[in-house]
């Protein structure tokens, strides 16, 4: 079996060690004997959208994010089509914001997003920083996601937007409505870094399982792994969030 991952803007969007998520996806495939290929795409480079099972977009600083917003405008349709066809996607922090409808800066300027997510973001006055715990329900299972957030943008979901989960500790999308992130089909946007996937192996496997199904159909199943350290790191992260 083989999975193909497209890492979008790895050079520009990598501020919170987002590479850790890629390392985790790759390792968890290899440990199971699943071949995996990661291709990087920078500005001006367009993936063959239907060739990939998984798309990844990390977070960036303001200037980098502006460069990416400009480039992403021409890619939104291809990316949205891939998601409609079952590809998995994970977008962290700035990546999450750029895939929404728009971002309004504190100066009142509006940066258009690609509208893959039913969400929009407005600049906030204070930075929302700290450990987060989110209770999430995926494929019928409830689990707690642990991570770290650091953002000043406040994201609001529109009526059709379904949050990734409910904030148990920390701020989440906007520090107001207790929602965190968004999930649409197999695409997830979230403010959680830390990085997110190493210490939330269930989420990593959820995304891998969806990717594998896209390519090989419903009977493709992931073998289980020894996750002792992952679970320990997860429970420590939850405790550090004051839970």
């Amino acid at each position, binding site marked *: 079996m083989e999975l193909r991952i497209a890492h979008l803007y790895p050079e520009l969007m990598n*501020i919170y*060690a987002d590479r850790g998520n890629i390392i985790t996806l790759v390792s968890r495939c290899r440990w199971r004997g699943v071949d995996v290929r990661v291709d990087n795409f920078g500005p001006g480079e367009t993936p063959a959208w239907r060739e990939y099972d998984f798309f990844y977009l990390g977070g960036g600083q303001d200037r980098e994010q502006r460069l990416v917003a400009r480039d992403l405008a021409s890619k939104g349709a291809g990316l949205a089509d891939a998601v409609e066809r079952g590809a998995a996607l994970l977008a962290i922090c700035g990546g999450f914001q750029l895939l929404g409808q728009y971002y309004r800066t504190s100066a009142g300027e509006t940066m258009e997003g690609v509208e893959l997510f039913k969400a929009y973001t407005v600049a906030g006055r204070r930075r929302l920083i700290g450990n987060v715990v989110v209770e999430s329900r995926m494929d019928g299972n409830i689990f707690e996601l642990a991570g770290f957030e650091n953002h000043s943008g406040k994201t609001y979901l529109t009526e059709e937007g379904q949050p990734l989960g409910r904030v148990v500790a920390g701020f989440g999308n906007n520090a107001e409505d207790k929602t965190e992130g968004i999930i649409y089909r197999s695409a997830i946007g979230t403010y959680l870094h830390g990085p997110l996937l190493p210490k939330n192996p269930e989420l990593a496997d959820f995304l891998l399982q969806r990717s594998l199904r896209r390519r090989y159909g419903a009977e493709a199943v992931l073998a289980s792994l020894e996750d002792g350290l992952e679970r320990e790191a997860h429970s420590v992260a939850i405790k550090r969030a004051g839970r």
Partner: protein
Amino acid sequence: MLDKIQNSIPGISTKVALSRGIVALSGRIGHGGTTLPGRVVRVLDGDIAPRLGRKLDQGCVLVSATNGKTTTSAMIAAILKESGLVVARNREGANLAAGVATALLKNASLAGRPTADIGLFEVDEAVFPAIAGQLDPRAVLLMNLFRDQLDRYGELEHIADMWRDAVKKLDQRRTIAIVNADDPLVAEMSKLKRDAFLCFGIEDSTAGGLVMQHASDSKYCTVCGTPFKYEVLFMGHLGKYHCPNCGNRRPSPTIFAENVHLDGMRGSSFDLVTPDWRQAVAVALPGLYNVYNALGAAACCFGLKVAPDQIKNGLKSFGAAFGRVERLIIGEKKVCLLLVKNPAGFNEVVRTLLIEPGQKNLLLALNDKIADGRDISWIWDVDLEALAGEVLSATCSGTRAAEMAMRLKYAGLNAKTLKVRPDLKTALRVALAHTKDDETLYVLPTYTAMLALRQTIHKHFQTENEMADLVWK
């Protein structure tokens, strides 16, 4: 006499006396005597530190950087002492305004006169502008900007802008600015065209490489945003760069290192070249990052007109700054303490370890307290994959021990070599038990873990070193 002074500077001696009393007292009650007096005096009189600072005969020197503040300041202090000056310094870690005020108070007579010749202060990147504005320094040494504790600072370019504005406000003849040509963000300052200005860098391209580390930060042209082209990379984003689009490029350093030779944990040597002279220097600290520290210290002292021999001897006599690279013997075993606090520094420590032959025993202690940065994601930016196959045992400790062990697992280390022991004392016992008598245990703690480890070693372990040197009182 006292009246006269009090008349000329109203109230200063009372305030100095009171504050010095607090210095003595806080030392005795075990507060560590680092910033409490400074905090008190700032409440009493926000003006007293600048007034004391401006009275120093030889003025003040400020050192700021993400990496190397403490070591570089200690090197400058060694050189200045070699040149016969009495130096007033702040304690490492006490690098905010209160720490600087405390150092000035400790080095003042009751009458409010400085007892030192020159002030030397390492200052936090974010408070550098404020302190530079207050003290009217004679020299400012700006070394590098790396990603560090983003939960506290915000973004690198913002700090670079703040630095540039602060330097712009300093008298362009009276204050000499010494900056690193190899760091694009810092080297921007060469465009201010100051009269009193020096920049330093490494010229020996064989000391670097061409592969960019994952943690590299400022890869884009500071003028037009195009990716820089690097002729060579020395550490993180430090190197010889130019912009293929707009022609923006690394300024030619006036003071530079040639013939760099790295000799593993034992140290390094290089030829120090200035516009006036050339001198072979050696430092007993490992890694290219310490070559940068020595080069920065030398450039700063050249700017202060210290003689070449004194620079050379000062660097030679220099041991190590608190917790940066310390060697001790515990029981029969050699232990080497190497502080790690951000990806760029951690990468350099890994690179230095790999120069040493054989597989290593490691103790990695990761804390997530405020002084370490509560966000620990940075360990995933470190190129720890280089350690795969190079490690005999890796004991992980600290508040985030499990995350550290997990990082090493994903870096490809054999899971059997990984032990998780959050308690530092237990971890040190376990790590020492895995280390044979003729082997070395390399201890890599984050900042607060380093402080706690030193206390633990002091209390619970037999060492051959003088513990007075090991633990701050």
